[in-house]
């Protein structure tokens, strides 16, 4: 398969692995955060960690949109879905995310709520046009990656004057999340594997503050195994040379300026919230998007009463430490016991991009060795 197989070539991977070994200083540990859940998933799906030198530790960042939604917002979503006039449209990943009392949209659906799985916000708009008697609410979730699709859908809803459609926006921004992690005490991350998909939209410039203000290098990377290995090599080279710059490994997709059309749509449709609550990370200033005044008619939070209760993260769950790269999933007391993919306690266990789910699915808590 073109554009995939080239980046999954085993021989090239082993050559990169040899290069990585030459780039580390024996005994000096390097901690790199892969910001995006897609990277976490790729690393474990391909068994890539086995190719990294012992000195390099990869920790997982906050870049899984499902994982950062706090329980209170899930309860808000359930309360919207339970309104008799509402057809609640959501990406499949969000259906199993537990809210307070561990209830999920999937359970709400089993008890009679009209919850529909969609693959794109445009599908939700199509439902609204097909079923004018229903109030269709789309659960907008995701970083700058998915937010433009929501924005374009809202632009289209306005253009076609679809009045029975609205968005419950939980879109978030990656930059403020990185800053929150860098500002948290005891942060010991040496560099970042920057998110690929988000960067197709925002470009590479928004990461420059990480280098300038915090002295850490960032390499934006693609999602194939050799992309990730290459990005790690680029980070190690920067660290060796004492540089801290934004570099782009994913040049075949990502441009420095991003996607101007997508950015313009975001600017037109959304405003930045004063602050937004993140699962495990708490409230982060200017980190979430709400619908702009001009789109108030399509804003589910303005059109329907939403409880908006703040629910403490469960005490036993260490999602916050996992999202900050301070704990490995298996170091959490409930990992694999009270919290499993079938019955998740923390969001990191729900999405296949969540660090805990990746660890669980690919068995990294079990540390299995396979003889060659």
């Amino acid at each position: 398969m073109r554009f995939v197989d080239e980046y999954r070539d085993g021989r090239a991977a082993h050559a990169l692995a040899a290069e990585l070994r030459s780039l580390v200083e024996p005994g000096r540990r390097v901690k790199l955060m892969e910001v995006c859940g897609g990277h976490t998933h790729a690393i474990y799906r391909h068994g890539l960690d086995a190719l990294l030198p012992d000195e390099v530790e990869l920790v997982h960042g906050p870049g899984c949109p499902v994982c950062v939604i706090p329980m209170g917002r899930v309860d808000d979503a359930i309360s919207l879905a339970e309104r008799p006039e509402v057809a609640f449209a959501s990406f499949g990943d969000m259906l199993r995310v537990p809210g307070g009392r561990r209830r999920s949209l999937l359970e709400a659906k089993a008890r009679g709520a009209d919850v529909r799985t969609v693959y794109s916000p445009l599908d939700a708009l199509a439902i609204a046009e097909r079923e004018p008697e229903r109030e269709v609410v789309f659960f907008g979730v995701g970083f700058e990656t998915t937010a433009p699709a929501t924005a374009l859908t809202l632009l289209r809803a306005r253009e076609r004057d679809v009045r029975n459609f609205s968005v419950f926006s939980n879109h978030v921004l990656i930059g403020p999340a990185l800053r929150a992690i860098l500002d948290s005490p005891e942060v010991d991350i040496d560099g970042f594997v920057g998110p690929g998909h988000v960067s197709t939209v925002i470009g590479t410039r928004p990461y420059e503050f990480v280098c300038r203000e915090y002295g850490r290098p960032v390499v934006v990377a693609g999602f194939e195994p050799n992309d990730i290995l290459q990005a790690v090599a680029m980070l190690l080279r920067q660290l060796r040379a004492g540089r801290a710059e934004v570099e782009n490994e994913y040049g075949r997709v990502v441009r420095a300026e991003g996607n101007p059309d997508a950015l313009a749509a975001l600017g037109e449709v959304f405003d930045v919230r004063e602050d937004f609550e993140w699962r495990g990370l708490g409230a982060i200033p200017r980190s979430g998007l709400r619908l702009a005044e001009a789109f108030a008619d399509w804003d589910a939070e303005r059109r329907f009463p939403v409880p908006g209760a703040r629910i403490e993260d469960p005490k036993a769950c260490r999602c916050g430490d996992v999202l900050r790269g301070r704990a490995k999933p298996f170091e959490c007391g409930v990992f694999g016991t009270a919290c499993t993919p079938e019955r998740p306690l923390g969001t990191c266990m729900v999405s296949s991009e969540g660090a805990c789910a990746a660890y669980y699915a690919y068995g990294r808590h079990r540390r299995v060795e396979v003889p060659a």
Partner: protein
Amino acid sequence: MSDAVVTLADGAGGKASRKLVEGLFLEELRNPLLEPLGDAAIVGRNGTRLALTTDSYVVRPLRFPGGDIGELAVNGTVNDLAVSGAQPLALTAGFVIEEGFPLAELRGIARSMAGAALAAGVAVAAGDTKVVERGAADGLYVTTAGVGLLDLRAVLGFDRVRAGDRVLVSGGVAEHGIAVMLARGDLGLAVDVESDTAPLNGLTAALCALGTELRWMRDPTRGGLATTLNELATGAGLSVVLEEAAIPVREDVRGACELLGIDPLYVANEGKLVAVVSPEAADDALALLRGHPLGAGAALVGELREDSRPFVLARTPFGTRIVDMLVGDPLPRIC
């Protein structure tokens, strides 16, 4: 939890389904015939050994590239008998039909059942119809049951599987699930993938010639190859070590899976066979499969290994990963 309800995850063929079957149905209905929870129950009387099975079909849409619910319902039950080492003798079919269902469509489905039965060399010998009010069913549900005569040359079971045994797959995986998903048209992907729905009793009869060298067979339907191999690992108490690159996946299916972010190992098949054979018989088994039109794409994909805990592992060009059981369902209502 006493107020718990059934969710869609309970029907997805993964961990939740198993919990429902073992924790509720087996608990209430427990008996020695049901207890092995195989694809078919084995019933013996006076030296005759029969295999008995049943399956319901709720696929949406009712027609998809490569087949329809009728063909699926015949092949599915034929295959449950076939992988138990039986040749199907006769099937029954039950229809739950929603008021307003077009007769012409119903006739088309009955006709394709007849075609599938003919191809498998089995008769639909008894049936039942029920009509329910509009809204009480999604068009049509079909339930088939089947009885088959065990091939006494082969003795199959988890307890027959040994470390060192080889795992074979009869052809490309993930075709049915992807075909049905694309047929719904929600995704706007234009890929020409057809369901692989087919009767496996010809292939299984060929393999039965291996006698006791043939250890175990299964058709990897819901939950895909990964789920079936996890059942094998747990049942046999051995790890399954796969060579990921050896697992056959058609190029366009692999492309669709990549786009959708789905692992083809978890996508359903309706005309593929997984077989475990002794290491000595592996080459013969591969030749027998490849000698059959439905097994032309057969491949040796892995082997069984002694382990402290049974896992399914896949070797990639980079390292290894664990292939766990499916949780939840990426593609609901595909069979």
